């Protein structure tokens, strides 16, 4: 299972988006924590690894922001901005900006379930961040 952090803006917070996606994709989505009020909502959920891509896509299609909290860490001292990682990212979360610096979009990153870029980095500047024990405990509780 993979943890995803869902953010719903004020405009869409009243829509039953999670239920819709569960029914449409027939994927079990496990809600770990939820904080919802009139200003918006934030939900930490678990989805099966193999369904991650389509679930993330479905939430984004409906206007929710999806992120996997701090799953990748870039050592900027080690990174030489070669760009070897760019095309390995299945969701194009790594790009090269105008001055040829490599930029990581942490919001988009799928984290440890993907990690396709990690072993492609020649200077080993990319690290998959392990979940800390309290988070693991939270996951195991379900």
């Amino acid at each position, binding site marked *: 299972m993979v943890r995803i952090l869902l953010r719903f803006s004020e405009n869409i917070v009243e829509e039953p988006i999670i239920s819709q996606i569960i029914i449409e994709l027939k994927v079990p989505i496990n809600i770990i924590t939820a904080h919802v009020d009139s200003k918006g909502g934030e939900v930490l959920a678990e989805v099966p690894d193999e369904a991650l891509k389509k679930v993330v896509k479905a939430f984004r299609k409906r206007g929710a922001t999806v992120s996997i909290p701090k799953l990748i860490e870039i050592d900027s001292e080690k990174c030489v901005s070669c760009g*070897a990682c760019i095309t390995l990212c299945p969701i194009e979360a790594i790009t090269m900006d105008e001055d*040829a610096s490599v930029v990581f979009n942490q919001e988009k990153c799928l984290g440890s379930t993907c990690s396709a870029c990690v072993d492609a980095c020649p200077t080993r500047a990319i690290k998959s961040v392990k979940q800390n024990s309290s988070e693991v405990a939270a996951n195991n509780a379900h």
Partner: protein
Amino acid sequence: MEALKLSSKKNKRTIEEINEKIRTGNVQVLTAEEMKKLVESSGVEVAFKEVDVVTTGTFGAMCSSGAIINVGHSDPPIKIQKAWINDVEVCHSGAAVDLYVGATVMSERQPFEYGGGHIIEDLVSGKEVELKAMAYGTDCYPRTQVKTNLTKDDLNQFYLLNFRNCYQRYNCAVNSRDETIYTYMGKLLPRLKNATFSGAGELNPLMNDPDYETIGMGTRIFLGGTQGYVIGEGTQHDPQNRFGTIMIRGDAKKMSPEFLRGASFTRYGTTLYVGLGIPIPILNEGLVKKTAIRDEEIFTNVVDYGVPRRDRPKLAKVSYKELKSGSITVGDRRIRVSSLSSLKTARKIAGTLKSWIENGEFFLTAPVERLPVDSVFKPMRQTEEVSFVANVMQKAVTCSETEAVQAIAERIVTRSVNHIVMVDGSGKLTGIVTSWDITRALAQGKTALADIVTRRVITAKPDEPLETASKRMAQHNISALPVIDNEKKVLGIVTAEDVSKLLGR
């Protein structure tokens, strides 16, 4: 006469004149990227008048790099026979205490993660490294073992001595196989899902002087953050195909880890990223035109690294402009492309070299001998035959999807094979059935072939070396590979039995 002399003077400029301008602070320097813009906007004549030197730069993995170090004599002295620095074997091929640290030699404890390139970076950064050495002992060098810690300050000489650097341009790599491969061109996803390239294109040093008019033995260059020298052409120098290379030397004690980085290519090995820049003196208008070369005029081939042969298929021709844009087109497909070298650092090198020259800290040299322009890079002469899949494959025994398990079982017995290849009406591969599958089907009472056939088949190509096919069988723990062509048509089958027969011969 006077007028003629004047005009000839106008059309030419000497290195001495440029150095005089550097001395007096009047030199005009542009980076190669700036030069191209100037020539485009103001033309060759103006650019020649205004520019004395164009600086270039590149920062990429250069495997044929290393450092020669002299560690001084121990007491009692040792004639080193074998030596390791931080568990990386270093080469001893001289008298007693000279060692060559090769960038691609890997650590015995952390292979693929730490190697010679990292030792060079660590030493350059001022870190302490551990030297272990052993010897057979002689009357004059009695010691047989030594272990000590060293920093660059403890070394007598620490010179970067790279025998092939700075390729003029390089291939763009893709992978046609069904699996991800890890190469010196990085991680290549299956079925042409990504591409990689290397090189700075229009910023590349040799590309800005492709006839090596100003580059050769003795050319002073930017190397690893300090001044170094070209000492000749590099190995595999291939000028006629625009794959020129250089051999270089520089004092590593003065270098900076920003421009000299140990690197690891997963499942390939370790290497060294080298930062290198060459100043091109603008001696005539011809050099203005040469340094005006743009990325769209520099082409390279898209090469299929999925084919493990010396001559790999070339699938397309692309320009460095396309490569730097992030995607290329092969046939009707758009493929995302990654750089392995750092354009950002290449730009920084060209900029740094420019400021050194402007500040009077760097003077140009004329080469005492130019790089060859007509030498040829030959393939290896091979006196022993190599086996390919086509040499050992046999006719495949086939079946169709509609057949019954019983019929397949009989075929396995009558033809005495262990593998039946399933094909469609046009002979294309659709699956494979083994005698083990049949045994299991009978035990479980299954009668339909469709229920037991393996549809994701691991295959081989006829022109593939037998060694890689055999490795693939071991990797997937299987005993045969159907041999197919590019259209998936079954040409035959190669079995582990056939391979061992040949190797045991």
